[in-house]
């Protein structure tokens, strides 16, 4: 919120300069709206700062949520220039509705890990210890839930979670707040939580991966800027930011 306020202020100060902005976005609006999966929160915020530095006068609006929800919004014609989803299934919701202007490209992968609150109060050492503990994962309806379910089934785990969260950040938050003893989240979310969580190794976790897709939306108000965004994410600089945050290469 503070970030947005700061951006709004910066935008207000930069508006007079917008006329002489560089970039390919001739005739574009000076706001780029990016709809992105919740697990991209940190990297996209960082890339947005970079993007704004490269495009003076341009304001990047980031809207984070569950991939399926954002894809549905895009399919319904919600305002947005770029859509980034955490799995191919939700991107298909947008492509099936002809809401995308470009072919979706894979820009990263992510794997699932088991995290526990700092200090590991419940003494969880692996998936087997989840039995009898209060643990969480995403709901089956959302991408992170599908990945978690695959991992759980692959390891023959029969313990039921205490909660099926609506997105991966909620699952992580249940762990960082100490409400849950453990949670299945993406490697990137574990990285973003820093010292607040500890990662417990899970056999086969690397295989339970998901790929991230990015596409310019058909109703884009700033198609030029949107393409610039895709190029930035796929660039060497974008790759570095993604790798630092725990994303795998496509």
């Amino acid at each position: 919120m503070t970030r947005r306020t700061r951006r709004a202020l910066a935008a207000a100060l930069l508006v007079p300069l917008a006329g002489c902005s560089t970039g390919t976005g001739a005739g574009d609006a000076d706001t780029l709206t990016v709809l992105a999966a919740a697990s991209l929160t940190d990297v996209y915020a960082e890339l947005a700062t970079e993007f704004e530095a490269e495009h003076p006068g341009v304001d990047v609006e980031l809207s984070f949520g569950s991939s399926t929800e954002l894809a549905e919004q895009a399919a319904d014609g919600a305002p947005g220039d770029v859509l980034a989803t955490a799995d191919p299934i939700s991107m298909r919701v947008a492509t099936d509705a002809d809401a995308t202007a470009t072919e979706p490209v894979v820009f990263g992968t992510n794997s699932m890990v088991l995290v526990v609150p700092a200090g590991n109060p419940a003494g969880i050492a692996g998936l087997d210890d989840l039995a009898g503990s209060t643990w969480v994962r995403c709901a089956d309806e959302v991408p992170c839930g599908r990945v978690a379910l695959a991992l759980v089934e692959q390891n023959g785990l029969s313990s039921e979670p205490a909660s099926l969260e609506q997105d991966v950040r909620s699952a992580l938050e249940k762990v960082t707040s100490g409400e849950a003893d453990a949670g299945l989240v993406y490697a990137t979310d574990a990285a973003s939580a820093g010292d607040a969580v500890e990662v417990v190794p899970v056999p086969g976790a690397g295989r339970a991966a998901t790929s991230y897709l990015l596409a310019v939306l058909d109703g884009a108000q700033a198609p030029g800027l949107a393409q610039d965004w895709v190029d930035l994410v796929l660039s060497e600089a974008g790759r570095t930011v993604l790798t630092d945050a725990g994303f795998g290469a496509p």
Partner: protein
Amino acid sequence: MRTAPDPLGRPPALLLVPAALATALLVVPLAAMVAAVDWPGLPAQLRSEPLRDALWLSLTTSTAAMLVCLLLGLPLAWLLARVDFAGRGALRALVTVPLVLPPVVAGVALRTAFGRTGVLGAPLEELTGFSFPFTVWGVVLAHVFVSLPFVVIAVEGALRSANPEYDAAAATLGASRWTGFRRVTVPLALPGILAGMVLGWARSLGEFGATITFNGNYPGRTQTMPTLIYVTRQADQDAALALSLVMLVVSVAILVMLRDRWLVTP
């Protein structure tokens, strides 16, 4: 049936047009939702197990919350309506706060107090091994937190509009204050108390933000109807519409229960 011309003249268009717009604003989205329901597929959707579990959980937790609200809310409403004490205005203001609070904030507040690491929740779990979050009791707690203010304010209004002179008369006849409360005050204000309870029940039934923040989501345990609708929407729009229709029907049923108070003007 045509009514006689109003002696004050025709209602002005300046008021009629916004009034019509207001009606459309409230009715059109609901009508559109009903129109969008996949009617042929509806019976199958209604037989789904998650729906039955969630509806049952919603109805039972809302009813339990309503009973707790009555048990705790009626005495508080009585205190606010009938007892003169310093800080009564402040107490009333305090009681009303959850009424205007965004439900997510209510969930965060509940967790800070009753969460497994909460101020009261941590010692409670230490002593008894019981904790509210992720349980059906957590759902009831969240429901009580958000609907108690509705019940207190509604019941207080009902107690205020009931004439306190009857209490005084009962007192002169030798009734203690407790007897007066039980035999005079409550029976006189009963319709208002019942309306307050139904209002609180309806508020519980629709509660979503506090419940999902405090308790998460698990079928049969913490997944109430609004949570089920929210989660289902992510995967299956038709199913979400069918569930929404069920909620609409239940809401209309509540209105019918309340019709004597709301749909008929004096």
